[in-house]
């Protein structure tokens, strides 16, 4: 115990903190989802501070491109699972902490099975499907959520869904952004890049909020979102209010949650959509149906090829006509056709469906129309 007193001495001596806060930390159970740029500093500071029980979930292995910001990992770790190395390194820092790991990307089932074992959930993921999944699960299971996200030189931090009284909670992510953007609308770190120190800043701010939540000190980042810009060292706060739209999108029951397809909502590239080159398409053209999902006014039309014209916004109500057919979706550039293919697959998960790469633009370029 003396050893522990010494380990935490610098925070124990704070009047606002003391032994009581330290005991709260050591009894706390925190689940950190994502062990990347945000997860690394969050985990290091929570372990150093003496948070007693920590869960870590991540399905990824270390790559060289992680090393500019994911500071639990070194070059010798490339190719190994992040959660395994994280646990090893964190236990070297503080072996009094109980650490549980999951080598997977958290699904609805995992939230249902494991959120109940934790007091606080930390979103340190890198994609919208996970962010909306985690937010909805926190609302459904009544867990406070410490949120962080980065984009190039900027980051966002907020604490969502904290109980105010028996009935009310502070706002959640859906109050701010009721529906997810399409995945091709917002680029992630691997597509847009990120300054290595930035997730460090944001992760440390998240860890700070976790410690405040557990110990009850200070004023939480609730009902507001803090934005940080590394280029001009400026913080900007936006004060949030409940959004009447939000509750329309949050699953109302565990069952509804289980059946919400978050990857699809966020337009994840699935493995069974095949982006087909024009040459390949010409070969299978006879045996497939070409569906043009552009608006009727978009030119040039595909009159030369037999096809159906179903603009993307109306596709949902016309899906019945297309069932059980092998389909090639086409649009102007190949983006909407990919969305159409995803929509089709959400109804017919085992269908063979193609999206014509490059779309009509490519056909024009190759003088095929």
């Amino acid at each position: 115990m003396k050893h522990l007193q010494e380990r935490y001495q610098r925070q124990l001596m704070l009047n606002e903190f003391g032994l009581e806060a330290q005991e709260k930390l050591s009894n706390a159970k925190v689940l950190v989802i994502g062990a990347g740029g945000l997860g690394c500093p969050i985990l290091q500071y929570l372990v150093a501070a003496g948070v007693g029980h920590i869960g870590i979930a991540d399905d990824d292995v270390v790559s060289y491109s992680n090393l500019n910001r994911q500071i639990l990992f070194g070059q010798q770790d490339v190719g190994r699972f992040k959660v395994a190395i994280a646990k090893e390194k964190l236990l070297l820092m503080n072996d009094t902490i109980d650490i549980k790991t999951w080598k997977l990307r958290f699904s609805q089932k995992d939230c249902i099975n494991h959120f109940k074992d934790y007091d606080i959930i930390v979103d340190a993921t890198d994609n919208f499907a996970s962010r909306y999944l985690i937010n909805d699960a926190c609302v459904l299971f009544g867990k406070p959520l410490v949120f962080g996200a980065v984009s190039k030189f900027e980051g966002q931090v907020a604490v969502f869904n904290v109980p105010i009284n028996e009935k009310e909670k502070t706002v959640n992510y859906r109050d701010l952004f009721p529906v997810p953007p399409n995945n091709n609308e917002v680029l992630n770190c691997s597509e847009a890049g990120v300054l290595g120190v930035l997730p460090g800043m944001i992760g440390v701010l998240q860890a700070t909020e976790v410690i405040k939540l557990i110990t009850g000190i200070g004023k939480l980042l609730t009902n507001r979102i803090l934005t940080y810009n590394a280029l001009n060292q400026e913080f900007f706060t936006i004060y949030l209010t409940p959004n009447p739209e939000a509750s329309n999108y949050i699953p109302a029951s565990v069952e509804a949650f289980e059946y919400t397809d978050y990857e699809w909502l966020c337009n994840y590239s699935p493995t069974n959509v095949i982006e087909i080159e024009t040459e390949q398409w010409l070969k299978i053209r006879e045996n497939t149906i070409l569906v043009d999902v552009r608006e009727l006014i978009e030119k040039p039309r595909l009159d030369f090829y037999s096809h159906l014209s179903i603009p993307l916004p109306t596709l949902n109500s016309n899906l019945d006509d297309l069932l059980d057919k092998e389909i090639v979706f086409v649009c102007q550039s190949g983006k909407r056709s990919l969305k159409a293919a995803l929509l089709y697959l959400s109804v017919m998960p085992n269908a063979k469906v193609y999206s014509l790469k490059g779309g009509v633009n490519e056909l024009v370029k190759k003088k095929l129309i």
Partner: protein
Amino acid sequence: MKIEVLFFGQLTDITGSSKLVIDYVDTTDNLKKIILEKFPALSSLKFAIAVNKQMVTDNISIEKNSSIAFMPPFSGG
């Protein structure tokens, strides 16, 4: 009379800068319309709007010398 419009995250890739000072506009809906006319590529993106740091979900009137923020969601981690 002017108002200040602030852009965050990847919105600045489209607007080219994080701050724009424009002539007074009376409501948030009208401001949004003007901004989208100026930067049509923004119309395919999602963002929240805050007037003087307070998030708004409905159309509200804008006071003079206000600062209006356009905040998109970030996904990286």
